[in-house]
């Protein structure tokens, strides 16, 4: 589909997965358009995600805009309400506060408030997350800002295959979808997705285990998987659940997992207070309290994100801090199901 596939066959690069998803939907459905800041330039945006699309689909379908995030979202709303399927790029997730009024008060509300006359099928793609030394204004994960907004879906894939399937689903979805792409995933590779679209709102058990459920999303899922490998060496059999979306929140999959493992760790790249991770523990304690022997969180400190490597690295959750936290919480002599 795209000229720039990963070198080994079947090895789909995350950024190419995104590009392919957009390209395939642009191809499939004339109502799809894609616009944002510098996305149609030769480079295809600052993360080189979308080169070639403008040339291939023309300036009517793929175009650059002024640095006007609120107008971007507002224009996407008006277009979506009148039959188009706009995909826009907000370059960094940190800028998501600028278009937030349109997303929250226009796009998210149309379906319900209009008495279900229509909806706003738009997708907002954005590069999120820390670890790249981009500092406090280019590293945040704004998923939690929007998790409490009824009417808008918040999706964040952890693998190229999921990215492609979920983005295609997002573009076909009749509702507004925030699609959050972790910067540190752009260069990873993985298999092509098995199905053309991946339904939004279904968490995935990406590793089965009997002793502890670790839940995360986006890059955190990779850290959790890596941590699970290490912990397997301790004799701890860890199950890993990838939420894939914060809204809808697939609590059923998490509850079912916890019913098996009786222990829950949620790993969030963001502060504990007001994050999705504490909320997830809350959902489980509301509906599955008696399955729960232990529940805790690995998150960041309650400060903005620092720039210096010696500050940023320990600030962020990682496979190591997850392993450390599990060992600290459960002790070395954790009684496992084995």
């Amino acid at each position, binding site marked *: 589909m795209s000229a720039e596939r990963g070198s080994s066959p079947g090895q789909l690069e995350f950024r190419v997965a995104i590009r392919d998803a957009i390209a395939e939907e642009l191809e499939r459905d004339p109502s799809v*358009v894609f616009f944002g800041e510098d996305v149609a330039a030769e480079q295809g945006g600052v993360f080189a995600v979308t080169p070639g699309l403008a040339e291939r689909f023309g300036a*009517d379908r793929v*175009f650059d*805009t*002024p640095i*006007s*995030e*609120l*107008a*971007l*979202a*507002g*224009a*996407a*709303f*008006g*277009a*979506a*309400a*009148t*039959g*188009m399927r*706009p995909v826009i790029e907000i370059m960094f997730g940190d800028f998501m506060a600028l278009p937030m*009024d*349109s997303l929250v*008060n*226009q796009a998210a*509300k*149309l*379906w*319900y*408030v*209009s*008495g*279900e*006359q*229509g*909806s706003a099928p738009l997708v907002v793609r954005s590069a999120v997350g820390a670890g790249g030394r981009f500092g406090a204004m280019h590293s945040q994960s704004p998923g939690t800002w929007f998790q409490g907004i*009824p*009417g808008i*879906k918040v999706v964040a894939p952890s693998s190229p295959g999921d990215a492609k399937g979920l983005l295609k689903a997002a573009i076909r979805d*009749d*509702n507004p979808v925030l699609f959050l792409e972790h910067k540190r995933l752009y260069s990873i590779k993985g298999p092509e997705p098995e199905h053309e679209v991946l339904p939004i709102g279904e968490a995935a058990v990406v590793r089965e285990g009997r002793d502890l459920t670790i839940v995360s999303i986006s890059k955190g899922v990779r850290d959790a998987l890596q941590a699970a490998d290490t912990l397997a060496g301790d004799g701890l059999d860890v199950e890993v659940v990838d939420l894939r979306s914060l809204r*809808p929140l697939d609590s059923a999959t998490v509850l079912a997992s916890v019913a098996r493992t009786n222990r829950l760790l949620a790993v969030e790249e963001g502060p504990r207070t007001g994050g999705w991770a504490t909320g997830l523990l809350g959902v489980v304690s509301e509906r599955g309290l008696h399955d729960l022997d232990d529940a805790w969180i690995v998150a960041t400190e309650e400060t903005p994100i620092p720039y210096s490597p010696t500050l940023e690295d320990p600030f962020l959750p990682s496979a190591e801090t997850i392993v450390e936290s599990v060992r600290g919480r459960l002790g070395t002599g954790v009684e496992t199901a084995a």
Partner: protein
Amino acid sequence: MSAPEARRVESPTAPERGEPAARDYLDAYARMVVIREFEQTIHRLFLKGEVHGTTHLSAGQEAIPVGVCMALAPDDYASGTYRGHGHALAKGTAPEALAAEMLGRATGVCGGRAGSMNVVDLEHGLVGCFGIVGGSIAAATGAALSGKREGRVSVAFFGDGATNQAYFHECLNFAKVLELPVIFVCENNFYGEFTPMLRVTGGGEIAARAGAYGIPFEVVDGNDLWAVRAAAAGAVERARSGAGPTMLECQTYRHFGHSKSDPARYRPSEELERWLERDPLTVARRRLLAEGVSEADVEAVETEAQGEMERAAEAALAAPYPDPHERPATEFKP
């Protein structure tokens, strides 16, 4: 600081256009009367406790949405504000469905979910009315992306206060850069809520702001149906021909306070009186008669419009309230 008299600037851009017939203006006048009656009815019903929360009446500003919509095709797009009853009625929303919405009834155009400030009527091309100042500007800009493909025009109605909002700036520039078929209609009634326009508007010239984006603009007597329609027709022509956006600053005045609880003591009484003399209904009526429409014909449409509104209000008042159990809400379109 008080509002200046509306000033009229000859359109530098409007070419000769086929004028509508006197009959069309009579119909438009009838629509203005419906809007006036609607606002007065809502006002009465509000005082009776039938309209809830708050409401913002557009009495005095009727010539603007009606004049603009005269120049539109039925399937063109528009977006309005919390002061949006006139926007909806001019665009085609049935008075009964709108009144029922105000009353929170199940038969309301949005099933009673939206209320006075957030009306949507997609069937009639009304992308929405927006409780957030400036929101309508974005909605119409976006609709113009669709419009550009479909040969449709899109209109944003908004107030003078909205021209100090982020939405105004970003969307006007966006629309110009993409040469979108959108018309930015500022209803300059010289006040935000309680604060005079001139006190919070740097430069004091609203239309001139469009000029800074390279957008053609016109200052229009917003109380003159003919003037509004002519300016709008020019803008529509420009939009449909691919020449991009236009801004119309329609100068007008609201007869009521800002919202239900506002006695509008901040407005000098001479100012109010001066504007009441130029009530857009009076202006239109006089002109109709001057153009040869008979007093009887004018009275006939007035009576008809009043009757239409009365029946609408009665039907709305008789309609049931929505039952949340009967029609469970969903967050997402399935």
